[in-house]
C-alpha cells in the first residue's frame, strides 16, 4: 500500500468537503485513516482534518491526490530517508535501520519505494538509479552501498488481520497450552492445508530429530505420500536418525519397541557411512539401499530437501550445507513462495526459519517446550498458531484427518 497524508482546512463540515473527500477516496478503491480532526466551535470557526490516504499503487494514489487537491487537500510533505555509505564489505554504517518482517516503504525524492523482500533483522540498501530498496544481510553489503540510517522517511505497514473468512489463524494467534484440547484445532489445520494445496500454495516443514525419535516419522512419511509437503528443512542429525531408523530400526541406538537395539550408538555412524558410500541420500534411494523413511519418501515424491549442518554433527551426509551463511541464503531463496510452514520439534531451526518468513506466511509451531513455541510464533502474531504438545500425537492426528478425507473422496469416486 502506498500512502500520503493530506490536510483539509476551512469550513469543511458546512461545505460538506470532508464527506466529499472521504467518499472520493473510497469510491476510487483507496482507504483512509483520520489522524486528527478539529471541528470549529463557533459558526465562523474553521475546521481541520489530517487524513492518511492509501492506495494499492503509486499511480492510483497520485491520481487520487490530484483530484483531492481540487477540493483543497494539501499534501503533508514527508521527509526523505537518510542514507549513509557502507564503510566496508559486510559492514553497515552506524545507526543503520533494522527491519521488521512487515511491509516497509522508504521515501526518496517525495516518492515511496517498497522494501523487498519483507525480511526481519536486516538493513535496507537503496539503489537510487534503479529506484529499488532491498532488505540486506551483512554478507550482502558491499563497501559504498547506500544504507538507510535513522528512522525518518520510513513507513511500516502492519499485516491486517484477515477478514474474508473465519479460520484458525484469524481467531487463534497465541499458543495452545499442553493441558488444553487440540483435536478440533488440528482438524481445522487439516482443512487449512487442504485449502492451501488446492489453491496451489506451497507447504514447508521444518523438522527436528524429535520427529523421528518420538516415532512420528511414519506420520510425516504419510504426509509426504498424501502430497502435503513441498519443502523440507532439517539438520544433518534429523536425516541421519531417519536413515538409521530405516536401515537398522533404531534412532541413536534406541529401538522404539525395545530398550536398546543391537549395535547401539554405532548404528548412527554406520548409517552415515552407508549413505556416504552410496554417494548421497538420493543415490542410496536409487540403489535401493534406502527403502523407507522420511528421506526416502522425499526423494520418491520429489520434495525439495535442504539439510544444514551444526557443530554437533557426525558425518555429515553428502549434500548437507555446512556453511551457515550459505545455508541461510538457500533457505531464504526456497522460502520465497512458501505459504504455510510447520515448525516441528526443533528450537534453533524453527527460530531461524521464523525470522526469514514474510508476515503473510501462515506458521504452525509444535513443540513440547512452551517457551520454544512462544519464541517461534512471536514473529507472526496474526498468522501463527502454537501447540504445546509432543509432536507424535499432533502429526498422527493431522495426517489421520487428511487421510480420512482422502479416503472419503476415493470411496466416493470409486462408487461413482
Amino acid at each position, binding site marked *: 500500500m502506498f500512502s500520503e497524508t493530506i490536510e483539509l*482546512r*476551512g*469550513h469543511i463540515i*458546512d*461545505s*460538506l*468537503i470532508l*464527506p*466529499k473527500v472521504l467518499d472520493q477516496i473510497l469510491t476510487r478503491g483507496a482507504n483512509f485513516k483520520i489522524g486528527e480532526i478539529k471541528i470549529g466551535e*463557533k*459558526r*465562523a470557526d*474553521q475546521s481541520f482534518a489530517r487524513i492518511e490516504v492509501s492506495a494499492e499503487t503509486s499511480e492510483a494514489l497520485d491520481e487520487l491526490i490530484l483530484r483531492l487537491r*481540487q*477540493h*483543497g487537500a494539501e499534501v503533508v510533505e514527508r521527509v526523505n530517508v537518510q542514507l549513509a555509505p557502507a564503510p566496508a564489505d559486510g559492514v553497515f554504517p552506524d545507526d543503520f535501520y533494522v527491519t521488521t518482517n512487515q511491509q516497509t516503504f522508504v521515501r526518496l525524492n517525495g516518492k515511496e519505494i517498497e522494501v523487498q523482500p519483507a525480511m526481519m533483522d536486516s538493513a535496507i540498501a537503496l539503489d537510487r538509479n534503479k529506484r529499488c530498496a532491498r532488505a540486506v544481510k551483512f554478507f550482502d553489503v558491499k563497501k559504498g552501498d547506500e544504507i538507510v540510517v535513522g528512522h525518518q522517511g520510513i513507513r511500516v505497514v502492519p499485516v491486517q488481520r484477515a477478514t474474508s473468512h473465519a479460520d484458525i489463524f484469524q481467531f487463534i494467534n497465541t499458543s495452545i497450552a499442553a493441558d488444553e484440547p487440540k483435536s478440533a484445532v488440528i482438524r481445522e489445520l487439516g482443512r487449512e492445508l487442504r485449502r492451501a494445496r488446492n489453491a496451489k500454495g506451497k507447504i514447508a516443514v521444518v523438522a527436528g530429530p524429535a520427529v523421528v525419535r518420538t516415532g512420528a516419522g511414519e506420520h510425516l512419511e504419510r504426509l509426504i505420500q498424501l502430497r502435503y509437503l513441498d519443502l523440507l528443512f532439517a539438520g544433518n542429525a534429523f536425516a541421519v536418525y531417519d536413515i538409521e531408523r530405516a536401515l537398522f530400526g533404531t534412532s541413536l541406538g534406541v529401538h522404539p519397541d525395545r530398550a536398546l537395539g543391537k549395535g547401539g550408538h554405532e548404528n548412527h555412524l554406520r548409517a552415515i557411512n552407508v549413505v556416504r558410500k552410496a554417494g548421497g541420500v538420493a543415490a542410496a534411494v536409487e540403489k535401493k539401499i534406502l527403502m523407507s523413511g522420511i528421506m526416502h519418501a522425499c526423494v520418491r515424491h520429489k520434495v525439495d530437501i535442504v539439510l544444514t549442518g551444526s557443530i554437533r554433527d557426525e558425518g555429515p551426509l553428502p549434500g548437507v550445507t555446512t556453511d551457515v551463511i550459505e545455508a541461510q541464503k538457500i533457505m531464504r531463496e526456497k522460502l520465497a513462495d512458501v505459504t504455510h510452514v510447520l515448525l516441528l520439534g526443533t528450537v534453533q531451526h524453527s527460530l531461524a526459519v521464523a525470522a526469514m518468513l514474510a508476515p503473510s506466511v501462515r506458521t504452525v509451531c509444535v513443540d513440547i517446550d512452551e517457551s520454544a513455541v512462544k519464541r517461534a510464533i512471536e514473529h507472526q502474531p496474526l498468522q501463527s498458531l502454537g501447540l504445546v504438545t509432543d509432536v507424535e500425537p499432533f502429526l498422527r492426528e493431522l495426517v489421520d484427518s487428511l487421510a480420512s478425507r482422502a479416503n472419503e473422496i476415493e470411496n466416493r469416486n470409486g462408487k461413482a
Partner: protein
Amino acid sequence: MRELLLCPPDYYGIEYEINPWMSRLRGTEAAVAQQQWKNLHGTLSKLDCKIHLVKAQPKLPDMVFTANAGLAVGKKFIPSNFRHKERAGEAPHFARWMEEHGYEIAWLPNDFYFEGEGDALFGDDALFCGYKFRSDIKSHRAVADMLGCLVISVELVDPRFYHLDTCFCPLRDGAAVWFPAAFDEYGQRAIRQHVTELIDVEPEEAVHFSCNAVVLDRDIVLPEGAPQLVATLQERGYRCHELPMSEFLKAGGACKCLTMFLPQRESVKS
C-alpha cells in the same frame, strides 16, 4: 441607497476564448453592446442606486464585467487573482480605483485564484463561494480568514456556469434562485442546508443567465428570456426588470457580471 461599480464597454469585444460561450469568429456588435449596457446603467440608476464608473482600459475587453474585480465588505476590498492571464491585467486598475475611493486593499497570495463577487455571494450570513473553473477552494479559506465569516464552498461542475453568479442568486428574503445542475451533489446539499428556500431555474431559462441578476431589495434586474422565473419572482412580490443582454451573453456574462456592489455587505456576522 446602494452603490454600484460599473465599467463602460468602450473596449468590450471577444478577443480570446476562456469559456464555452466565447467565440472570436462570432464576435460582438459594439453599438448593440453599448446600447444594452446603457440600458442596464439607466435601469439601475432609476432604482435608487448610486453608480460609480471605472475607466475602461484598452486590451482588457472583459473589464466591463466588474463583478470580477474583487469582493468588497465594509471598507475592505479583496482584489481578484484571475485564473486566466488574459484578465490578470484588470486587477491593478480595479485595486487602484478602490484604493482611491477609500477602500483598504487586502491582497490574497498570488497563487490563490479568486474571481471576486463572480464567485462569492452572501446569502443570509454565509458567504457562498464557487470553485473549480475559476476560483480555488484555497482562496475561500483565505477569504474566510480575512472576513471572519462562514464560507460555504461549492463545486461548480458545468463549464457553461463557470462562476457562482451564473447559477446562484441570493434574494433579500433569505431565499435564493439557482440552477441545481451546475453544482455537484455535495454542493447542492450544502446549499440546501444553508438556504431556507430555493427557487429552481429550468435549464432552458438558465442558459439565458437568468440567475445572473442584480437584486436590489424588492427590485431584480435580470436578462430577458426567463418568463417562468419572472412569474415566480413576481408572485413573491419582486419587481422584475428584464433587459436584453445578448451581446454580453456572447462573452458568458449578463446583468450581475456587469455590476459590483460597493460594498456587497456593510459587515459580517462571525
